[in-house]
């Protein structure tokens, strides 16, 4: 069962962030960024379909990728809080993306060697995408951090809001620890130092600071979310709840 939960937690990061990005479609600052962010959303939902179809096949009976995606309650979601925070402005969108992308890429690199063949196969495929996502978000970190005074100020506000949630990416739950032992899950302790080195390098290049920021309470991986998630799910699950058990 803990493998199931692990797969859900990997999938939920992509699903909830993919949802946040999908809210932006048609409203980006340029056509090019609109296309890029939609593309990232598409990649993330592609990964969700990969994970959830594997899980549905394992669980059998009536379980489908859609029942797993659309019919769980708030407390049954295991994404990190960072991924559910709102699209306050383009600075928040980019900073949230960048903090996640670097982690995602490194996590997938490790997961390529997962002893769970399905997880390893999805990781191999998703890694190419995550590398592209990181290139995109990192380039915008620099552009906006080192662009104009206005953009720099907005980026600093976004870093102040979002950096305090980064630590949760490395929070190891009890069920995750078991899976690290058996080689299924990625031991994120092994990538933590490099992760912080990379993001601080980019933050420094972008003239952005994390001085004085302290970690905030974040237990998304334990199914404890912010008030944001309920509204995300209300929208995300609307059709499946309003019209139960239908084919679309």
């Amino acid at each position: 069962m803990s493998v199931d939960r692990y797969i859900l937690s990997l999938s939920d990061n992509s699903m909830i962030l993919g949802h946040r990005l999908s809210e932006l479609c048609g409203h980006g600052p340029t056509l090019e960024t609109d296309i890029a962010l939609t593309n990232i959303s598409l990649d993330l939902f592609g990964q969700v379909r990969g994970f959830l179809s594997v899980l549905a096949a394992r669980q059998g009976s009536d379980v489908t990728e859609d029942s797993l995606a659309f019919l769980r309650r708030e407390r049954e979601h295991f994404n990190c809080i960072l991924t559910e925070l709102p699209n306050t402005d383009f600075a928040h969108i980019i900073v949230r993306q960048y903090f996640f992308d670097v982690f995602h890429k490194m996590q997938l690199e490790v997961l390529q060697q997962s002893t769970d063949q399905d997880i390893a196969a999805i990781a191999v495929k998703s890694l190419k995408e995550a590398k592209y996502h990181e290139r995109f978000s990192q380039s915008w970190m620099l552009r906006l951090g080192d662009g104009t005074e206005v953009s720099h100020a907005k980026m600093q506000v976004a870093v102040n809001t979002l950096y305090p949630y980064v630590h949760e990416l490395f929070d190891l739950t009890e069920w995750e620890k078991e899976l690290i032992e058996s080689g299924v899950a990625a031991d994120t302790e092994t990538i933590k130092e490099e992760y912080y080195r990379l993001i601080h390098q980019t933050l420094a290049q972008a003239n952005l600071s994390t001085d004085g920021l302290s970690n905030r309470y974040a237990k998304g991986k334990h199914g404890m979310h912010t008030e944001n998630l309920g509204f995300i799910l209300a929208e995300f699950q609307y059709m499946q709840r309003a019209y139960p058990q239908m084919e679309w």
Partner: protein
Amino acid sequence: MGDKIILEDKFQKRIDAGEKIEPKDWMPEKYRKTHIRQISQHAHSEIVGMLPEGNWITRAPSLRRKVGLLAKVQDEAGHGLYLYSAAETLGISRDQLFDQLHTGKAKYSSIFNYPTLSWADIGAIGWLVDGAAIINQVMLTRTSFGPYARAMVRICKEESFHQRQGYEIMLGLANGTPEQKEMAQDALNRFWWPSLMMFGPRDEDSPNTEQSVKWKIKRKTNDELRQQFIDITVPQAEYIGLTIPDPDLKWNEERGHYDFGEIDWDEFWTVVKGNGPCNKERLQARIDAWDEGSWVRDAAMSYAEKQANQIGKEKLAS
């Protein structure tokens, strides 16, 4: 004056011979202006068209449908991008074109001023709106202006995929539960007439047709294209068991076409003039995206300049 007449004459002969006009070729000012207007109107329609469909991305009923819709709306952004590029070859910038949209000087297709009220509207738009657009666009793949014709070839391929995807959504709903079928019928009821309006006013009320035919922008009239759309679409509706909301619709053996009822031209002009159900909201959404994005675009420009200066300094130092 005489030179200009000779040039215009040569120009028309090239078009008559089926040659493509390229951006650097000589062209009459009116040809340039007409193309800027038409291509930009088309580009604006693509990006405004992202909004009614984007409205359902976060509520799509399944993962497969969500991914399909995201990809479709992304394609539309891509169409906008290469249509703006085609317009730019005629000597106008994308910023100027956006400004024309935001100030209401440029138009976009009125169909996007209708709301998407249910998931079935996403199927109806794909089936009917993309279906109607394809009929226009297939004709435009042979238009005289090279960049526009080439953009159309690519766009048509993607649009016909969208149209099939939309029809498949409708097929699924029509074969689904009674609630789903009702949803599909309601979407058809609301989108049928606005789709017929997409072909523009009746020929006798369409002043630009003659010149457009001469330049091969148009090879068929509004009424001919509308009839073609109806003849193709009616059997598709019958096949999935949905009813076209037109009591006067009847096959005319003699004409070899469907006869159909009168379009509500008052509604048509109301929407064209800006008073449709969503005109204000669609335009405002575009203006907001542009205004809220201005600091992002400024920062990108400033960063690019800094980088260029840096490279310049390094070159001088070496």
